[in-house]
């Protein structure tokens, strides 16, 4: 099939188990943030990815550490899956000196050059051209890295996407546009922001190959991402990967906000049934590689790891005020 990842994913059980593990880890991290946010020690806006784990996990599985990722306000999952350090992420959210950017940015500005998470930019669409620029640099340097621009459905309304896509396509640059369509921009449904038509028409109109996939099926995401990344890395030009998924919690903050009734109850219900972890667990259990014991062991391991990370992040010192004036000029 040309543009769509194949139906039932044919991923190896061992790999699927690993992806499931990563999704569970992400879920537990985000839920831990959500639970502890009320302590008012994480004093910055947070955009959680609960419900969208398969996208970050499936895409990052197809990447190398040396690949460059650029993302948005909703960056925790991308940061961690690209190889970022949990303690440094939490420390950043806690505003600590040990945070991945020394407390200068908070949750919306996670980055770690060592793992190739180059930047999180909270201006919608603004990180997309950066990814294309990194791809241009790699192309000129004859490196075989690729760049990834993570974006949400709303970024497809921003001119920046089109300007960057045109240039990437013109120059056949090694960049993957990884779009998580969670149907909403804050409280606003896609239907109120864009005409009804398939979103992959947009990159295709710029001569960009596009893949479309169930974004809650981590195997399918990974398979499509792998195809798209292979296409990109082989020098055939940019690719676009459309992942249909859903955000469970409020746009910004730790809570569920469905009492506000901006989304139909059935819609939310349907997507919760299609929880990425439920989808992968079902497949794994069917194939006999996951059972309660394995799942419990993973959870226990993560509880400890996450607790320790929170403890370290909370303990870490705040930066000195004087540091605020540094790094204005290189």
């Amino acid at each position, binding site marked *: 099939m040309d543009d769509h990842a194949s139906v039932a994913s044919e991923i190896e059980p061992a790999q699927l188990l690993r992806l499931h593990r990563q999704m569970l880890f992400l879920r537990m991290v985000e839920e831990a943030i959500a639970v502890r946010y009320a302590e008012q020690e994480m*004093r*910055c*806006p947070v955009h959680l990815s609960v419900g969208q784990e398969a996208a970050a996990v499936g895409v990052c599985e197809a990447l190398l550490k040396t690949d460059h990722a650029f993302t948005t306000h909703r960056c925790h999952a991308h940061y961690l899956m690209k190889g970022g350090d949990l303690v440094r992420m939490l420390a950043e959210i806690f*505003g*600590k*000196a040990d*945070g991945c950017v*020394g*407390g*200068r*940015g*908070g*949750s*919306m*500005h996670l980055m770690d050059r060592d793992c190739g998470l180059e930047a999180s*930019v*909270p*201006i*919608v*669409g603004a990180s997309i051209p950066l990814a294309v620029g990194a791809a241009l640099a790699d192309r000129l340097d004859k490196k075989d890295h690729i760049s990834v621009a993570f974006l949400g459905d*709303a*970024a497809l*309304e*921003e*001119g*920046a996407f089109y300007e960057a896509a045109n240039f990437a396509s013109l120059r056949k640059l090694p960049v993957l546009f990884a779009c998580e369509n969670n149907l909403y*921009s*804050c*409280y*606003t449904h896609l239907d*109120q*922001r*864009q005409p009804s038509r398939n979103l992959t028409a947009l990159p295709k109109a710029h001569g960009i190959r596009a893949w479309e996939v169930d974004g809650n099926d981590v195997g399918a995401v990974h398979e499509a991402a792998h195809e798209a990344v292979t296409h990109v890395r082989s020098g055939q030009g940019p690719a676009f990967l459309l992942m249909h998924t859903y955000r469970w919690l409020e746009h910004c903050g730790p809570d569920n*906000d469905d009492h*506000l*009734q*901006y989304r139909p109850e059935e819609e939310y219900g349907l997507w919760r049934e299609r929880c990425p972890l439920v989808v992968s667990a079902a497949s794994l259990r069917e194939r006999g590689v996951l059972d309660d014991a394995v799942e419990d062991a993973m959870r226990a391991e993560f509880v400890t790891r996450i607790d320790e990370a929170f403890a370290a992040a909370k303990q870490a*010192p*705040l*930066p*000195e*005020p004087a*540091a*605020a*004036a540094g790094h*204005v000029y290189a």
Partner: protein
Amino acid sequence: MPERIINLAEALRECLAESAARDSNVLVLAEGAEDPVPMFGTLRDVGERATAEQVIEMPVAENGLVGVAIGAAMMGKRPVVSFQRVEFALLAFEQIVNNAAKAHYISNGEHKVPLVVRLVVGRGWGQGPEHSQSLESVFAAFPGLKVIMPAFPADGKGMLAAAIEDDNPVIVIEHRWCHYTTGDVPAGYYTESLDGPRRIREGSDVTIVATSYMVLEAMRAADALAAAGVQAEVYDLRVVRPLNLSAIEESVARTGRLLTVDTGHHMFGVGAEIVAQIAQRRFGDLTAPPRRLGLPDHPTPSSRGLVPGFYPDAARIAEEVGDMLAIPVDKVAGVVDDLRRLRGDLPIDVPDPFFKGPF
């Protein structure tokens, strides 16, 4: 008249609802115009007072949609575009400073662009450098635009109404913390002229000109200074463009001293233009060098560990005034300590309840 104590956000909401109801040409555009809490509540129920058609959900496309609003304004609509942060409008900068600001000029007066662009300055709770900029001086650099910064609810309601009635593009810069200021606000529709600064407090020792949220800090400083026998005259600048400094000139003629307090950076800020004009026109009246406060010359950090010292506050303003007036250090220290004590244990990244008013 009974008192109606409401906050600025609510006052703006009333204004928008009343403006939209009385003039069907008023359009309300926003990303999330129909959110449960649209634009910090300032757009709530606006559609119910007007027709549903007047409330327009914007795609996340600032440049295009501001252009759309300008085109509609040229045809007689009165669009009010609201952005949750100043920064989002930077994507629409070209449309604002070329098409909106110059269409009247370049059409030899044929086109009018009765556009309002509301921009919110973020502060606190770790907003970070791209959700906290106060760029009034940047917009004020362009003839053809008007730039206003209401700080108080009654003012805000009337000034926004005047901005909507104005046949020119008006940039409204709303500090998020000002949304919480409360005061007595007239019921019903009224406008408040966009003619210039307002004197908030009389005094003979120094003229303080502040913008937006900094007006509140300046007032608090002035109150504390009064306890130490220093009488500061405080102006709420309100209108950054067109900049009308005649009242401030007269004040400086009396006090001989000028201190500006910017909500944005002090470098290339509004204070620079004010100090330059006063130095130019009231040189002989100044008895001490004019001074400016504002944000230091670096972006806004997110962490509460990095924020101390970043924003001018009442204590800093009092210190500065003390220094200008060469008041004995111990006398000012008392004032400053009192101000610091008033704040108590309150975290640095949340608004001090003091300033809520009512004013």
